[in-house]
């Protein structure tokens, strides 16, 4: 019966959303349609605050002063439609509004809220007051200062995290592209069982990431993991290698970052392979014919034809892959996130997650997030700028 209740609950919610969207559409439709009628302004001013106020009252969070705010906002909206939009492009905007209201509420607002948090002090001791009154002590730039002076976890510093993140991002993307390119080149030959191979090769990507990472973590277990079993057998069979230090290793506690990197490389190669293979297959074979006649060797063809022609597909994939890797919490958290887990493998984003939810330092984590975002934004803009410049050159 609980199952029925859950269906009912969720279906009701979807209906509520649909109703909300319908109201929203009706509301803006009215603005587009009647923007030049004489009664437009009065009707709008009267209707909107009433509607929202009713809704909020029903929701139980109405406050004095809200009404005045709503009237002011509505006046601004009315003026905008009357003098700026004037009923033009109505259909395009009506189609966009639901998605963008959703994005505004669940993407833009949380982002601004995070900025707000970063200038205040929300932590385990203040969260109850905030829940009840909605007010927080203002601390200015204190949180930002702390980001650079104190450890987000227990000992690792911001600068260590930054270096580790850059190392992590670079090494992962490098091996993704290298492995993906090599496999794509191999698969681009006219070999039999190609489809079968490709199916097997995308399995790490296709598996649910949680399962894949947890399974790989199992393989790095010090006694029962595949890796150590094999290393142990090698050391047994070839004692001279054991003398060189080959043997079972405490992967998860001694080399956590290396372990995470190996796992993430394993996870990420299939995506690159598929993208690059798509690019390779779209290159017309007549370029290779022409290059054959021109006398290019295998590596010359790779250098002068394949690479430049795959670049338009490769560059966006690398950009995307870089951002994904930079922001990858999943792998690191799933490998090291359990109670008593190490912080030797943490990168910026995983430290920020742990600071918020393991150490409950909310505002600190918000400031940390803003710093990380600014950093990523700066890198991306510089990079994209360079990319555009390169594009113009061609």
């Amino acid at each position, binding site marked *: 019966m609980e199952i029925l209740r859950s269906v009912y609950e969720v279906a009701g919610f979807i209906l509520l959303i649909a109703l909300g969207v319908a109201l929203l559409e009706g509301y803006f439709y009215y603005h587009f349609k009647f923007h030049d009628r004489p009664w437009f302004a009065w009707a709008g001013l009267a209707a909107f605050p009433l509607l929202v106020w009713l809704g909020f009252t029903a929701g139980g969070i109405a406050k004095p002063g809200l009404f005045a705010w709503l009237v002011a906002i509505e006046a601004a909206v009315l003026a905008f439609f009357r003098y700026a939009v004037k009923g033009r492009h109505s259909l395009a905007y009506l189609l966009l509004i639901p998605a963008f209201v959703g994005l505004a509420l669940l993407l833009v607002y949380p982002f601004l809220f995070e900025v707000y948090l970063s200038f205040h002090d929300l932590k385990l001791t203040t969260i109850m007051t905030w829940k009840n009154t909605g007010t927080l002590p203002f601390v200015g730039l204190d949180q930002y200062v702390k980001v650079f002076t104190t450890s987000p976890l227990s000992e690792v510093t911001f600068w260590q995290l930054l270096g580790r993140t850059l190392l992590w991002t670079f090494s992962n993307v490098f091996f993704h592209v290298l492995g993906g390119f090599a496999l794509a080149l191999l698969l681009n030959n006219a070999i039999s069982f190609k489809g079968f191979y490709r199916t097997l*090769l995308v399995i790490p990507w296709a598996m649910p990431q949680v*399962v894949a990472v947890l399974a790989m973590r199992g393989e790095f277990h010090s006694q029962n993991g595949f890796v150590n079993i094999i290393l142990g057998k090698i050391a047994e069979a070839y004692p001279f290698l054991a003398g060189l230090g080959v043997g079972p290793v405490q992967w998860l506690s001694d080399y956590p970052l290396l372990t995470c990197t190996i796992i993430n490389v394993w996870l990420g190669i299939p995506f690159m392979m598929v993208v690059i293979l798509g690019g390779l297959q779209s290159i017309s074979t007549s370029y290779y014919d022409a290059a054959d006649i021109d006398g290019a060797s295998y590596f010359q063809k790779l250098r002068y034809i394949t690479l430049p022609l795959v670049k338009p597909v490769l560059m966006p994939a690398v950009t995307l892959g870089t951002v994904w890797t930079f922001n990858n919490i999943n792998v690191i958290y799933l490998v090291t996130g359990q109670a008593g887990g190490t912080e030797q493998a943490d990168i910026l984003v995983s430290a920020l997650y742990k600071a918020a939810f393991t150490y409950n330092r909310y505002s600190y984590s918000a400031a940390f997030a803003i710093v990380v975002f600014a950093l990523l*934004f700066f890198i991306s803009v510089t990079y994209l700028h360079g990319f555009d410049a390169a594009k113009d050159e061609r």
Partner: protein
Amino acid sequence: MTNHAKTGYFGALAASAAEIMESPVRRAKFFKYALIHIVVLTAAGICVYPLLRILSISMRPGDRLFSTDLSLIPDGATLAAYASLLKDTMFLRWLWNSLIITLATSFIGVSLASTAAYAFSRFRFPGKKAGLILLLSSQMIPAGMLILPLFLMIMKLKLMNTYLGMIIAYSVSSLPFSIWILKGYYDTIPRSLEEAALVDGTSQVGAFWRIILPLSTPALSIAFLFNFTTAWNEYLVARVVLFSSKQYTWTLGLFELQGQYITQWGMFAAGSMLVTIPVLAVFLYSSKWLISGLTLGSVKG
């Protein structure tokens, strides 16, 4: 035996092998392809092996879960772990929770994306470029960054530990990507189809509803699938929003199974298999579309 060896299938194989070895060009080619097969097979083995290991662990009898045995089909294989997973844990309930949250999320996400993408594909209006840039740059926001404010909002709305809280948190996470994919697909549908519909007497909205949407089924499925897999495999938001094991999604459930008690290794493996097989099947079945969608999106980006 002596005479028979020269006839039949193996005889023919031997004959053609001998033929290959005669010509230097074909011999070089033969070795090249043999090498490719060996390398690709090794890589494929590395890709598949962990999955096979889970399968093998899930079938081990309880007393040998921690053996260092590497054989894929264990001695005395048993399905006991599956039985106890379904009987002793709330695994089915977790799957149900995941399913209902994921379906609702995908439905909302695809509906919102389908209309917004149409506007971006077919109309010129002030703010179009800004909107597209917003969509692209939203991909740059670290995923972990928004978890905190969303968590606080959900707490404030008193939706902790509920489906609704999860659906709200998930619903727009794949929206930019879905819009991007759908816009790319709409762009490939010739405008003349809608113009014909307009001449036949539908409105612009009618043309979208009756012509464009039915034609876009493949792209809509990709977008749906993408929304679905993202939400289905999500872990980090669920970790902070859901706290009673009754409300867990399967990702939380599995993590708990693997994390805490030694005896649940087998059940973890069994649960992993049960979750992975359908996901894998859907992914491989749809991978052609998914990949074309991805490359389309990335090329245009």
